[in-house]
C-alpha cells in the first residue's frame, strides 16, 4: 500500500474541473421526475398484499359487471323440483363438487334423485326454492359493490365539500356545521334505517337514504381536520395574496393535498357500507325477496347450515374475501400515500 501511494505524483494537471462554470450542469437533478401519484403507486407496488388485493378486487368487480347482463341461469327463477341440490361441476369428478350429499348416513347422488337432466348442473348448488346459488351470488356481490359505490358517492359529494367548507370558513359556520354532524352521528344507523321503513318500503332505497344521512360523516370530519391544518400553510396564503378565489384554492390546493385522505377513507368506507347492507339484509330489513344480496344469501344459508353447509359457506367466504381485500388495499394505500407513518 505504502509503495503504491508514494508512486503517485500529483500536479495541477491531475485535476479536472467538474463543470465548474456550468451552473445548469451543477444544478441538474438527475432523478426521474415523479408526480406524487407515480411515487405513491411505486410504493404501493412493493406491498404484495395490497397488489394481490387489488387484482382480486379487479376480478370480483369484473365478474359483477358481467352479471348485469349475464348469469349462468336466472337468479330468481324457481325450480322447486331441483331444491337444495349440492354443488356440482361437469361430471362431478372434483371433490366437493360431486353433486352427492350425505343423507341419513348414505351418500346419495341428489342430482339423480331429483331427475336432473344430464348436462345440467349447478356450480354452487341450489337453495330451498331451487334457485341457482352461483347466479344469486354473482348478483349479490354486484349489489354489494353497488352499495359500496353509492357510499363512495356520498363520501365525495357530501362529505368532502362539507368538510372543506366547515374547515375553510371556520368560526361560527364551523361550529354550526360540526354541531349538525354531532346531532346526526348521535343517532344510531340502525334506528335511522328503521325510521326509514316508515317512509319507504324496505329495499335499496331505504338503505341508500340511510347511508346518505349518516355515511359521509367520518369523511367530513377527516377532511375538515385536514383542511384546518392546510389552510394555515403558507402556499395557501400565497395563493390568497395572488388573488385566487376560495373556490379555486379548494380545487387547486386543497383537494390535491387532501386526495390521500380522501382515497384512503373511501377505501375504508366501502367495506363498512357493504357490511352494513349485509347486516340489514340478514336481519330482514334490507333487500327484500326475491332479490339476492350477500346478506339475504347468508340469512337463507344459516337456516339450513347444519344440513346444507354449502349454502352459507360460499357467500360467507365471498363477503370475507371482499372485506379483507378492501381493508388490505386501504392499508397499502395509506402507507403508499403517507410514507411518514410507516417504519
Amino acid at each position, binding site marked *: 500500500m505504502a509503495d503504491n501511494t508514494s508512486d503517485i505524483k500529483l500536479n495541477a494537471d491531475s485535476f479536472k474541473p467538474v463543470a465548474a462554470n456550468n451552473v445548469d450542469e451543477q444544478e441538474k437533478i438527475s432523478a426521474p421526475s415523479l408526480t406524487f401519484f407515480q411515487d405513491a403507486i411505486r410504493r404501493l407496488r412493493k406491498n404484495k398484499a395490497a397488489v394481490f388485493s387489488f387484482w382480486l378486487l379487479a376480478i370480483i368487480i369484473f365478474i359483477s359487471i358481467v352479471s348485469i347482463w349475464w348469469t349462468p341461469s336466472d337468479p330468481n327463477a324457481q325450480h322447486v323440483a331441483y331444491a337444495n341440490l349440492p354443488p356440482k361441476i361437469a361430471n362431478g369428478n372434483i371433490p366437493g363438487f360431486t353433486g352427492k350429499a350425505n343423507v341419513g348416513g348414505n351418500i346419495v347422488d341428489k342430482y339423480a334423485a331429483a331427475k336432473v337432466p344430464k348436462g345440467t348442473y349447478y356450480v354452487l348448488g341450489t337453495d330451498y326454492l331451487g334457485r341457482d346459488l352461483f347466479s344469486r351470488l354473482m348478483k349479490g356481490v354486484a349489489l354489494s359493490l353497488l352499495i359500496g359505490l353509492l357510499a363512495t358517492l356520498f363520501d365525495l359529494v357530501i362529505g368532502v365539500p362539507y368538510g372543506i367548507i366547515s374547515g375553510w370558513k371556520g368560526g361560527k359556520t364551523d361550529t354550526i356545521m360540526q354541531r349538525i354532524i354531532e346531532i346526526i352521528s348521535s343517532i344510531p344507523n340502525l334506528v335511522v334505517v328503521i325510521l326509514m321503513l316508515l317512509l319507504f318500503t324496505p329495499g335499496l332505497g331505504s338503505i341508500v337514504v340511510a347511508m346518505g344521512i349518516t355515511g359521509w360523516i367520518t369523511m367530513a370530519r377527516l377532511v375538515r381536520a385536514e383542511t384546518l391544518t392546510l389552510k394555515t400553510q403558507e*402556499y395557501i396564503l400565497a395563493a390568497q*395574496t395572488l388573488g385566487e378565489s376560495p373556490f379555486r384554492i379548494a380545487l387547486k390546493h386543497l383537494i*390535491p393535498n387532501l386526495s390521500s385522505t380522501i382515497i384512503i377513507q373511501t377505501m375504508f368506507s366501502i367495506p363498512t357500507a357493504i357490511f352494513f347492507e349485509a347486516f340489514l339484509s340478514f336481519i330482514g330489513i334490507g333487500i327484500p325477496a326475491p332479490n339476492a344480496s350477500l346478506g339475504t344469501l347468508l340469512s337463507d344459508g344459516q337456516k339450513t347450515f347444519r344440513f346444507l353447509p354449502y349454502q352459507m359457506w360460499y357467500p360467507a367466504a365471498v363477503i370475507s374475501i371482499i372485506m379483507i381485500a378492501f381493508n388490505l388495499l386501504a392499508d397499502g394505500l395509506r402507507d403508499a400515500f403517507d410514507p411518514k407513518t410507516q417504519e
Partner: protein
Amino acid sequence: MQNNPQPNERKKLIEVKHLKQYFNAGRRNEVKAIDDISFDIYEGETFGLVGESGSGKSTTGRSIIRLYNPTSGEIKFNGTDISKIKHKDMLQFRREMQMIFQDPYASLNPRMKVKDIIAEGLDIHHLVKTDEERDARVNELLDLVGLSHDHATRYPHEFSGGQRQRIGIARALAVEPRFIIADEPISALDVSIQAQVVNLLRDIQKEQNLTYLFIAHDLSMVKYISDRIAVMHNGRLMELSTANEVYNHPLHPYTKSLLSAVPLPDPFYERNRHRKNYDNSIENDGQIRSLQEIVPGHFVLATEEEVAGYQAAAEEYNLGD
C-alpha cells in the same frame, strides 16, 4: 442609498396609521398582536422591521397585504385605503403587492410542478394568453432568480431550501408587483444561502425599482439590506430611523439590548461583549407613550418628559462622532 436627509419629500407608498390588530377581540384569550403602530414606507426604499419572536412583525406584514382585517386603524397603499378596496379593484391590488414567505418548505404546494407554482399569478391575472407564452415567461422568471429551465417540470420536494425560496421569489415577481413584503425570507436558510437570497432580492430591487418591507429578527442582515429600520416589541414600535442611526446610535433601551445580542466573528470583540438586559417595566408603567421625533428622522417611543433625556443621549453620540 442610506441616510436620506429629507425623506418627507419622497412619495409615500405605504402609510400605516394607528394600526391595531387584536385576535379574539373582547374575549378572555384576547391577543394584542399589534397595538397602535404608525409608519410610512417610501417608494423605492427597503423598510426593515425587526423584533423578537411574537413581537407582531409578521402580523404587521399580513395586515398590510390584507390577509387579516385590522381591528382598527388605517393602511393606505398608494393613497387608497386598502380596507375600502372593492372586489373589482382587489385583483389589481393583489397584483401590486406581493409576499415572500418564511418557510420555504411550507410555502410551495407539494402537489404542483414548479412551473405551475410560478405561473399561478399569471393564470389568475390572465397575464399570458397561450401556453408557449406562459412557458416563456416562467423560463424568464427562472433565469431572473438563477434557476435552470429544466427545473420547471420538477416538484418542490426535489429542491433545497435556497432553491425553494428562489421559486417563491419567482412566484411573487411573476405578477410584476411594486411592493413586496418579505416575511423573514432568510431565517429558515443557512448562512451561506442567506447571503445568496438577500443579494438576489437587492439585485431585483435595483432592476425593477421595487419597494420592500423586510421582516427579520437578524439585525445585521436587516441593516445590510434596509434603508430604514423599525424596531418592534410587544406589538409596538420602539424606535424608527435610518439603518445607520438605529445600528450605530440606538436610543431606546430595547434597541440597545437587541444590538448587544448580535454576535460578530471577532474573538476580541466577542470576549468583551456584554449582553444588555432589557427591563420592560419601563414600558409598562402605565404612562401613555407615542413615537417622538428625537432628532430629525429618528423616532423613539417615549412620553413627552422622556424626550429630553433621549435628546441628550443623541447629543452625546454626535459629540462622540
